[in-house]
């Protein structure tokens, strides 16, 4: 018992315990040139952020730098938790981040650039030309804030993604009309998709900087990191790293000069209001999206579920087998996979809008569960009653409509309501295919204000406000009908 406690404490302190190693966090899913798994040895990472972390470690007199994988949107929360000393993989310099955490000097200047399809090049020169068009970017970034501000001023439609690969493939497939992202991300996408796949517009929408982020309580280490960065800028080692990864340009030289001179940094233009009040409208909008997705999905699930259950109870052998296979396959595979298959996998055949794909995936998934509820409920009506109905002359259809169906509905009601509440919460998954619903909006909100406390509580309150009345309704219906059905 005591030994186990010591082991737990040792594990808990793992990250910060060894002072000879700089532990840094980043997201290798972001890929090159920031951080990516080394193709030669996938257990290692490479990229300019990796080399900069190693350079900082040397400057701090540490023996080495150790990488910890963390989801990009969680870097701030993770560093405050003490999972690692410093977070850096394309971490943007924003006023909110500076207010909430200890942030290093900027070490790279990026430009927010627009990418459009080649044939739109003449028509679109900037955000102002995108009224009514869908513009993609990574959620919870400066670029996303720029798009939100532009939604109000120019009337474009921001579309938020969880990764920086699909915005460009969706640009080519026509799901979005432009992508606003950091210039090195745009250039990388252009290399990957072939040089003529899309066009990067020359005029930047804004400039910003990459920084390292440390826990608020750790300004001393931040100051040491700043000193190490200055040293790397001064001795040319940082320039060498950036050149090696082919991301060096004149603006980096100018940035280094300003940093070494101690000049104040320009900050990227962004939506100024991060106050809670300013977020309430988007929270309400996201809650509406959650409700719409949930209600439509449930309606689809009920319809398809009824069909499947009827096939399993009344169908011929082949129909029963087909329905059983559907139910088992859908229940046996992750909803997340089904979302990806319907949105991205089917894109070559049919290009579904994100909202429709979300409703289809959730609805078809829940249909399998509904089908099992209805099948059980239909079979729970006693065989003797069905035979009595036959001797009275009812047709099969009439038996289903007048005797079996009404009783089955009462058996099915409580589990159906439970499923609907579960669906309401599972609808958060559809954010992976760019639908900004309540949880996604909360996560964006949390990243912007640098804390999960208030956004988390607000989000929970909204979910409860939606699910508790449903649970109450179910209990009431059960009380009213339960008495003569059971």
């Amino acid at each position: 018992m005591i030994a186990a406690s010591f082991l737990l404490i040792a594990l808990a302190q793992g990250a910060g315990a060894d002072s000879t190693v700089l532990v840094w966090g980043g997201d290798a899913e972001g890929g090159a040139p920031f951080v990516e798994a080394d193709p030669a040895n996938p257990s290692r990472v490479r990229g300019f952020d990796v080399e900069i972390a190693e350079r900082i470690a040397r400057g701090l007199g540490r023996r080495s730098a150790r990488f910890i994988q963390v989801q990009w949107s969680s870097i701030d929360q993770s560093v405050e938790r003490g999972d690692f000393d410093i977070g850096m993989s394309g971490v943007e310099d924003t006023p909110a981040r500076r207010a909430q955490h200890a942030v290093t000097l900027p070490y790279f200047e990026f430009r927010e650039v627009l990418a459009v399809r080649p044939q739109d090049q003449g028509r679109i020169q900037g955000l102002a030309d995108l009224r009514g068009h869908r513009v993609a970017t990574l959620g919870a970034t400066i670029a996303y804030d720029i798009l939100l501000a532009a939604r109000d001023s120019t009337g474009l439609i921001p579309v938020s993604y969880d990764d920086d690969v699909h915005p460009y493939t969706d640009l080519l497939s026509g799901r979005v009309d432009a992508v606003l992202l950091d210039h090195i991300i745009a250039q990388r996408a252009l290399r990957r998709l072939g040089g003529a796949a899309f066009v990067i517009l020359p005029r930047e929408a804004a400039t910003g900087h990459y920084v390292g982020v440390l826990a608020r309580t750790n300004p001393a280490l931040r100051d040491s990191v700043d000193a190490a960065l200055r040293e790397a800028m001064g001795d040319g080692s940082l320039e060498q790293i950036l050149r090696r990864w082919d991301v060096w340009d004149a603006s980096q030289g100018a940035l280094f000069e300003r940093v070494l001179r101690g000049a104040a940094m320009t900050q990227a233009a962004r939506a100024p209001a991060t106050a809670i009040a300013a977020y309430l409208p988007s929270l309400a909008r996201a809650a509406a999206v959650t409700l719409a997705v949930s209600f439509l999905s449930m309606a689809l699930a009920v319809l398809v579920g009824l069909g499947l259950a009827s096939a399993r109870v009344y169908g011929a052998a082949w129909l029963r087998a087909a329905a059983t296979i559907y139910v088992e396959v859908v229940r046996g595979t992750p909803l997340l996979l089904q979302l990806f298959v319907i949105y991205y996998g089917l894109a070559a055949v049919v290009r579904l809008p994100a909202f429709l794909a979300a409703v289809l995936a959730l609805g078809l998934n829940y249909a399998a569960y509904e089908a099992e509820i209805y099948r059980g409920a239909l079979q729970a009506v006693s065989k003797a009653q069905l035979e009595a109905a036959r001797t009275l002359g009812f047709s099969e259809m009439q038996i289903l409509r007048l005797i079996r169906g009404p009783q089955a509905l009462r058996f099915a009601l409580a589990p159906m309501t439970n499923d609907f509440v579960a669906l309401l919460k599972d609808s958060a998954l559809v954010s992976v295919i760019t639908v900004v619903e309540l949880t996604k909006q909360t996560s964006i909100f949390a990243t912007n204000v640098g804390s999960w406390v208030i956004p988390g509580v607000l989000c929970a309150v909204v979910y409860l406000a939606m699910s508790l009345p449903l649970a109450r309704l179910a209990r009431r219906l059960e009380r009213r009908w339960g008495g003569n059905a059971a």
Partner: protein
Amino acid sequence: MSAILNIEGLRICYEGRDVLKDLSLEVSGGEIVALMGPSGVGKSTALRAVAALQAFDEGRIVVDGFTLLPGPVQPESRLVPLRRSVGFVFQAHALFEHLTARENVTLALRHVWKKNPVEADQTATRLLEALDVAPRAAAWPRQLSGGEAQRVAIARALAPDPRLLLMDEPTAALDPARRSALSATLRNLAAQGRALLVATHDADFARAADRVVTLPSGR
């Protein structure tokens, strides 16, 4: 009086074993016939075959001019004349649990026999009163006693005014006082010209019948 039910040489096999063999009987209007024998000799099976709930392998069943032959049970659409002629009271009553006693009686009248609601209600009231269960018309099946549930089930079976009434073990859930009351009820129904075939293993009750057909055990 001519027979309403005529069974000739009925044989029913189940998994290669004879459940019922060579059963022949007739029931005429105004007559109560008791089908006797210990549990498991095929009394219920015979009733189910007459009601076309069960296929049979050999023989012939004629109900009020409608003939059933060996082979699979026919689709309901071809059985409409049979359904009009035969009422069935199940051992477990099998009342529709989501409907009140009155609604159990009116449902088939309205949806199968297309009576208007007022007419169906009047028929239900008359039957429930005749069976002495009218005060329980608004009760749900689970609120009824065994005897009350049985009388509602009889009312439901009688609603379309069938010429033949089949009853499976009607005394199973009744106390002795109720048994003699039931005998009187059945006697009344027969007096109205109906044919009654009652499967029972209750020898006392069978004495109320006009005739007893005993199925041999040990097949």
